């Protein structure tokens, strides 16, 4: 054991400085045996990830700056570089969701679905509002999400408490195109029609086969 003559305490340490006053410490005369410390040295794992993150941030900045520069030189085609910025932002949001929720695939899928919905609605609006988002993108997206959820569920053999909320939310989103159908703003009603029909079947399957799991899960999630 070591001894700090300033603090007058014995010290268990491999260091040669006192943890209290940072002065040099000496070996205690009392005992010569080396006492084992209670804590290991901990090395960092995060630095490698940090480097990848730095590269990605740097690349995003380069892409944005370069596209603006080219856009200014060749300004005849309008401000297309704004779309580049939007795309970069979307990729960042999507990656952030994917990374943070990487341990919960169902949740991840729903968040990505939400992101794509918002982006396609906005994109549609700013590229002339032809309605491609509500005609095709959203209904197809929602159908695919339901299919993917079912597949994920069966492959990972998730328990009710791990998929139920996401399945219900996915199913409910699939009902949304009914609004497009009723309001008559669609050029092509088939994707939306199939989507709504599919989600009704999907939800009723949950209700019929997993009704009890569903009520239990809802009771837990909505306890007051």
């Amino acid at each position, binding site marked *: *054991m070591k001894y*700090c003559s300033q*603090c*007058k*305490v*014995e*010290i*268990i*340490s*491999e*260091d040669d400085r006192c*943890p*209290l*006053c*940072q002065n040099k410490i000496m070996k205690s005369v009392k005992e010569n045996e080396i006492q*084992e*410390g*209670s*804590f*290991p*040295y*901990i090395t*960092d794992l*995060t630095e490698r990830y940090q480097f990848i993150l730095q590269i990605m941030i740097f690349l995003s900045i380069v892409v944005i700056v370069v596209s603006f520069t080219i856009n200014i030189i060749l300004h005849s085609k309008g401000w297309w570089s704004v779309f580049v910025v939007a795309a970069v932002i979307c990729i960042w949001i999507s990656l952030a969701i994917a990374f*943070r*929720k*990487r*341990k*919960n695939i169902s*949740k991840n899928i729903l968040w990505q679905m939400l992101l794509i919905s918002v982006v396609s609605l906005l994109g549609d609006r700013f590229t002339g509002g032809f309605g491609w988002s509500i005609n095709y993108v959203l209904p197809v997206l929602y159908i695919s999400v339901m299919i993917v959820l079912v597949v994920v569920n069966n492959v990972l*053999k998730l*328990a*009710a*408490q*791990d998929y139920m909320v996401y399945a219900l939310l996915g199913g409910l989103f699939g009902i949304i195109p009914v609004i497009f159908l009723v309001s008559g703003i669609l050029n092509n009603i088939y994707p939306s029609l199939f989507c709504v029909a599919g989600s009704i079947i999907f939800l009723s399957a949950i209700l019929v086969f997993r009704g009890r*799991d569903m009520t*239990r899960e809802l009771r*837990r*999630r*909505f*306890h*007051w």
Partner: protein
Amino acid sequence: MNKKNQKLQWHRLDHAAKIFPVASNRSDTKVFRMACQLFEPIEKEVLQNALYKTLEEYPLFRSIIKRGFFWYYLEGSTLEPIVKEECAQPCSEMFDRNVKRLLFEVTYYRKRINFEVYHALTDGTGALLFFRTLIMYYLHIKYEELEKVPVQLDYGASAIERLDDSFNRYYDKSKVSERNKKKDPRRVFVYNGERLSGYRLRIIEGTMSVSKLREKAHEYHTTITVFLTALIICSISDEMTLKDIQKPVVINIPVNLRPYFTSLTARNFFGLLNVTYDFSRQSGKLKDVITYVAEAFKEGLTKEQLSIRLNALEALEQNAFLRSTPLVIKDLFMKMGYSISSKKYTFSLSNVGNIEMPEAFEKYIDMFDVFRSTDKQLACVCSFGGQLRISFTTPFVSAELQKNFFRRLSNMGIDIVVETNPLTDEQR
């Protein structure tokens, strides 16, 4: 029907636990550690088996935290805890709302068994029940001579009693209107300085003889807890500038409520006692501080005083308007409330007390050790086998408070062995 879906247990978070999912983050993970040092190196397989057995007795520890629409809640899981050699920072983040994982962890290093718990699951007393059982099973499996000794704590709680939400049980609606004494509007002294990099915690522990310390405390006609509290208050003042002196020092002391109300729960059940000392108005001499702290303890540690706080907080939680606010919004307000309340104390001191083990097991155990995460300054105290261990944790580079504290003790003639978690120069 899937077997996993059968009889899924779930529990509301108890009142104290509700704040932790909101308040915990990388800089204050709300994780605490209990460690037990034995005389021989730990065997991984034995520890793993002991853990399985312990978990059977405390099924609540298999819970995970889920987000409901109004509240977080505990949900049973089928996850298996895996014993690992210690490889992460002490008290690293345990709760991540995106990751389904258990809220405790058992690791080992050399002769030490470490048990880390997320505070939403239980408090020190509850965790200690689990931990003592774990140690007993470990020793029971490892040493043949202990085979016939029953693994049983001197603790008569039924499985249901262990799960009790005692905050709720002892909530007395008729007494909600009773208020605490008027509050001091001044800002409390809170130390702030350079922090260690990477959200690290510095742990500085001192071990000393209980009897020597008691002797010293008796010289001042007081108990060990009061004596240590007063010493900490004085050690804080050593570092305060003249400007800081104008602000009161507040020591925040978690109090185990089980002895005051009859409860044997293994979940959270603690109250808080704040001891305010004002160096600009009071003398600051150790003797006077001790008298003052002793008085504050006597006043604060009564069932009536403790239940005032319990009732006020539980009433807030029962408020219909607050209850029906969605969690997303509640999170924001709770975060704000928490950050305001955390500015109201300088230092937090938890005394876990003497850790008792059945006699047959005692001789296999060297020492216990308790500490918890913080983004301020705090200390945890426990004792075992006539030795008392006080563990300071801090995210700050400065160890002046700890230095002052231990120097005060060593100058009184008390022998202290100090230990700290090793950090490289870059980590400091």
